[in-house]
């Protein structure tokens, strides 16, 4: 039974993941003439990636996604710890979790566009600062800048980080923590030696669930970056619209390669073993 299931899973995974990725990589080495791919292999698409500033877009996207993911992790860890181990009332816990999902009911564009009235030249922040006499000219860098893109990305990607981390901390048996405290471990030591290692799978999942979607994010950079902070999503869309499939594929393949490298690095530090979560189960 297990073997059949495993076989099925691998077969499906091959069909839905491996084949498209293989095709994508193949496309990136082809040329297009009159809507059809040539049969000869070439590296032109990769050269074009480096010529038109798209390589810089890739690096910028990785940097912004990485920064936002790091900030999210810093915010999510204490929050998840408090929610999983600090909140006694199940009702409060349920309410907080429900509140985390509320934003998903409003479209990202609507949530993002609101930042414009906060950050624009005539927006809330500038008006307030000028009113208080702190500045005499509106600050330009609040909107249509990397600052506003980072800010706009923070809220939408918080739940994807906090939920896996919260779940994995919730699964840690309280007795393990009590045992460590009985044996004289300080709270910092409990956190470092018990909670973090056991929560690591959740942390790794949170990083992946947050970082990867950020790479393809188009709405926030468009609305708050104002075309000044170009990220990968828009760059690839623009290529597809002029039917430049090879360069689009090369760009995507490049990102996949970088992701694969990051994933391997995470496996090495994260141990990658889901089983670790169950080690705290009552026997």
């Amino acid at each position, binding site marked *: 039974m297990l073997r059949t299931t495993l076989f099925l899973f691998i077969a499906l995974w091959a069909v839905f993941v491996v084949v498209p990725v293989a095709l994508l990589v193949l496309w990136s080495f082809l040329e297009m003439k*009159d*809507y059809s791919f040539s049969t000869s292999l070439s590296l032109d698409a990769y050269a*074009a990636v480096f*010529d*038109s*500033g*798209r390589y*810089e*877009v890739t690096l910028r996207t990785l940097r912004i996604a990485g920064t936002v993911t790091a900030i999210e992790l810093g915010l999510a860890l204490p929050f998840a710890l408090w929610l999983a181990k600090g909140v006694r009332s199940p009702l409060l816990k349920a309410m907080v979790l429900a509140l985390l999902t509320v934003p998903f009911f409003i479209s990202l564009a609507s949530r993002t*566009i609101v930042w*414009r*009235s906060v950050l*624009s*030249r*005539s927006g809330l922040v500038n008006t307030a600062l000028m009113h208080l006499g702190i500045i005499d000219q509106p600050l*330009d860098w609040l*909107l*249509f800048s990397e600052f506003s893109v980072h800010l706009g990305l923070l809220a939408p990607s918080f739940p994807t980080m906090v939920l896996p981390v919260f779940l994995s901390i919730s699964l840690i048996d309280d007795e393990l923590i009590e045992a460590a405290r009985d044996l004289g471990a300080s709270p910092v030591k409990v956190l470092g030696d018990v909670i973090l290692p056991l929560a690591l799978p959740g942390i790794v999942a949170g990083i992946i669930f947050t970082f990867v979607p950020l790479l393809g994010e188009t709405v926030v950079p*468009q*609305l708050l970056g*104002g*075309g*000044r902070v*170009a990220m990968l999503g828009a*760059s690839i869309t*623009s*290529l*597809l*619209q*002029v*039917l*430049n499939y090879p360069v689009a594929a090369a760009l995507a393949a490049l990102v996949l390669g970088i992701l694969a490298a990051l994933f391997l690095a995470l496996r090495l530090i994260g141990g990658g073993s889901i089983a670790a979560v169950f080690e705290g189960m009552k026997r």
Partner: protein
Amino acid sequence: MNGHDLTKPPIRAGLSRRAVLKGTVAGAAVLATPSLIGRAQAATPTVRIMGVETAALDNWASFEKETGLKVEFTGINSDPGIFRQEVVANAAGERIDIFLMDGGIEDELGAKGFFAPIDPAKVKGWDAAPASVMNSPLAQGPDGKQFGMPVVMNADSFAYYPEVIGEAEPLSYALLFESEKTLGKVSLENTWLTSLPMAATYLKVAGKQAIGDPSNMTPAEAKAVVDFLVARKKAGQFRTLWSTFEESIDLMARKEVVAINCWEPAVKELRKQGKDVRYAFTKEGYNKWMICAYVPKEAATGARAEIVAKALSGFLGGAYAAQIAVLRGYATANAKAGLAYAEAQKMPAEDIESIKANIAKIEKKFAAPLFWQNAAPTNIQAIEAEWERFRQA
């Protein structure tokens, strides 16, 4: 199924008599269907149109009355990329009779055999429309074949706040690209399709750069224009790039910018909100665009060809011209037919006025020399890559 003997035993296991009968009934129904459809078509044939949303009427009743056709409209974005994929990859011609798309695309899709040439003799009203419009390069393929029929058109420039600019029209595109007055308060449309040719037009007319056709630049010309734009970007000329119609309105409404190369309907909206915003008459010329009707090669023969001819005549007719002028401020190739129709139908006086004003505006703008917007320039991928370089700078 008549005349079947129901008393016979089942023909064979697993295929009962009843099943066979059912099959026969179903088969008969299927066989009868085409003739039913044929009869329905004889009553009111349907024309299936796929095209840019803004070329659609909100109510096709008068158009249907004029042409004797029923209209089935599928809207798409004014996006040559999506359109290309529909026509090339999804074989849209098999289920669509007429495409309405930004002109220029026939240089690519017509030349490659996806569209059939249109015979002007078959379209009523063709001769009443100005030949200069009907024979525009935006309707003809590279070899002069008439792949497109102009449907609606306008000439775009930029919107501005007169109180900030403080100059009399005609104005220069310098206000968008190179002006202390608007420094850091300009937004450009986030596409090479409009913003690059406008910058090229400015440089060309100012004598700063030798450029042949601003809407069909060579890679070297595009590079020179983008070099200029990058320098202006570094000088802080541009506040932001806009991507959606609502966004362009919002940026102007909150005075985040004071000059923007938006579409004319955005100015209509802003004026409705009580903002003193104008759409510039310019020194250098306009981004003249037209949405053309294209006939997929699959619809060029037989019964579909008849339907297509009627619908094309409808787009040059009075009902469509009158309605689209009031609805969007666009003119058709035969805008005067719209005025005649409006007067004959006793449409409200203010509508008749707006149709008249529209005709005057279009005539004035289309007399300017530059340039026809081109969705399919020869060096499209090089131009797109240059635009990307501007966005990254």
